[in-house]
């Protein structure tokens, strides 16, 4: 069996890539994908910990996370469409009338 630590290191790497993607990339769609990567990194860690101890709690949480992530992205895409209709761009830096 692959040691749990390997999974956790992979999940930490995925999480870091996700956070950097959210902070650095400017296209809203790519930012959404990075958020998904963060959530799935957490899912991987949960499943790995749960598998190690043959405990189901972590795996149950993962099912809820997958469902919630789908709902969240639906709302995010709807907001993006609303922005795109008025601004004709998916670049998050262009959406900045509120400042100060």
């Amino acid at each position: 069996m692959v040691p749990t630590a390997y999974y956790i290191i992979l999940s930490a790497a995925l999480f870091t890539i996700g956070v950097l993607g959210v902070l650095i990339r400017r296209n809203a769609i790519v930012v959404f994908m990075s958020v998904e990567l963060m959530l799935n990194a957490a899912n991987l860690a949960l499943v790995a910990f749960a598998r190690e101890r043959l405990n189901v709690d972590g795996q149950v949480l993962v099912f809820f996370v997958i469902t919630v992530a789908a709902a969240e992205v639906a709302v995010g895409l709807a907001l993006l469409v609303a922005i795109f209709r008025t601004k004709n761009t998916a670049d998050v830096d262009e959406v900045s009338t509120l400042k100060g």
Partner: protein
Amino acid sequence: MFQITDIPRLLPEILLLVLALLVLGSDIFERWGRTPEAQLERVRSSASLTCIGLGLVFVIALLQSGYVFRLPDDVPANLFTNIIRNLQSGGPAGPTGAETLPPIIGAFATDHLTMIARLALIGAAFLTSLLCLDYRPNAHPAEFYALILFATAGMCLMAGATELVLAYLAVELTSIPLYILAGYFRNDARSAEAGMKYFLFGALSSGILLYGMSLAYGSAASAMAGAVTANDLTQLARIAELAGQGGAGGGVLTLGMLFVIAGVGYKIAVVPFHGWAPDVYQGAPTPITAFISTASKAAGFVLLLRLLVSAFPALAGSAALGPDLGGWTSLLALLALLTLLVGNLAALPQTSAKRLLAWSSVAQAGFMLLALVAWAAPQQFDRDQGVAALLYYLVVYTLTNLGAFGALAAVALAVGGDEIADLNGLARRHLPLAVLLTLCVLSLAGVPPLAGFFAKFYVFMAGWQAGAPWLVVVALATTVVSLYYYLRLLKAIFIEPPAENTPLTTPPGITAAVALAVAGIVVLGLFPNLVLNVFSRVQLVAGL
């Protein structure tokens, strides 16, 4: 185990969800006309149904809490007394009136903390729906009100969650409707932008929160030897217990705690996780701004308190300057310091009244963090005082900010803008509204005898007892700084000449909501013991 008798304990949440479905259904199943009059009628019916429903839920929750009246044991049984008795046996005092029941399947505590938070949150939702009475949501008004109700149910669950799965789901049930509400006027560029920013930061924060939870769960799982048959590893109390047994998970647990603080830190908008707050508060429809800045923040604080105190008690540490500095209390003290400085200084140069209040809300979160720092105090009594101070501050802040943003909404509807210049000469154009707004602003600034003064006083006491006098000194200094920008608002209201001399008309719903909020501030300011007696019962919380 979940038992049928647990249903009354969940009654406020169930009622909120039923009411939300009722509001949605009443709009869908009615055949509405296409004329403007029919549209207006449609908005009115959803709005008044929400208002009346929330008022009823609040009364039922108050009855269940037993804070104003507890049915004596020797009353003869009839239908009416039986209903009240069943209701109150599901309340925080339990069936006997003395002992708090353990959390439902270990996941949802119905103790005094949850009950007080529920009352504050449902009250905030009620005032918000009053503020929205005269707002015109577009094509489908029922969605707007149903989303407020769903978010309120989520906040109530957040306040009582003692388990990671429920905590995560409650955070999302609160956040997702609020993203939609912030961007609800999607043809208005400012509102759409606010929704987008709120969503992006919110999604980032829930990812961070979830990662923190996975690490906390992992450290609990690792601390167990061999295969785990019991399925309670996501319960906060269990995580704390397993962390106490030591093992290799110490570093992982600390990392998880940091991620949890960062994730919830976004929800309560403390520096450095506040980037979204001013933009979202300014861009969102004003009643929704009031709701996000009060109820969402209050629920976030209660959740943070529960998570830190129940799951990470061993990592509390100390906030006193010296060799013992460490743990989450010192981290919160640092966040409070940053929040107080950045929030108050950034509010100084603002020209938009709404954005000024947004920065002031950020700064207020700093004062509330001070009450959480009280957990560093060695005496349990001082910790309980800190929790009571936090709850008092939350209730007062909720009322005050709802009143202030509500008054701004009324001005914006009448004048057409929410700049400070739009408040010019308000006292000459609409004296009652000017007086109400002034009372709210003075309470935010902490001027006696309004409730804001006592809220700050108790919080400073809590910080002092926690051994962090340096933080209290900074907080006092920033309070003085904050007077400057609050007085700028008052100067515009009373001294500046108005652009026009015509009297303003304000919608009755908003006026009623603001008046209710201000009445609350004045009463709580004059008689703080009314609620403090109730808040000090929180020390009876199971597992806290």
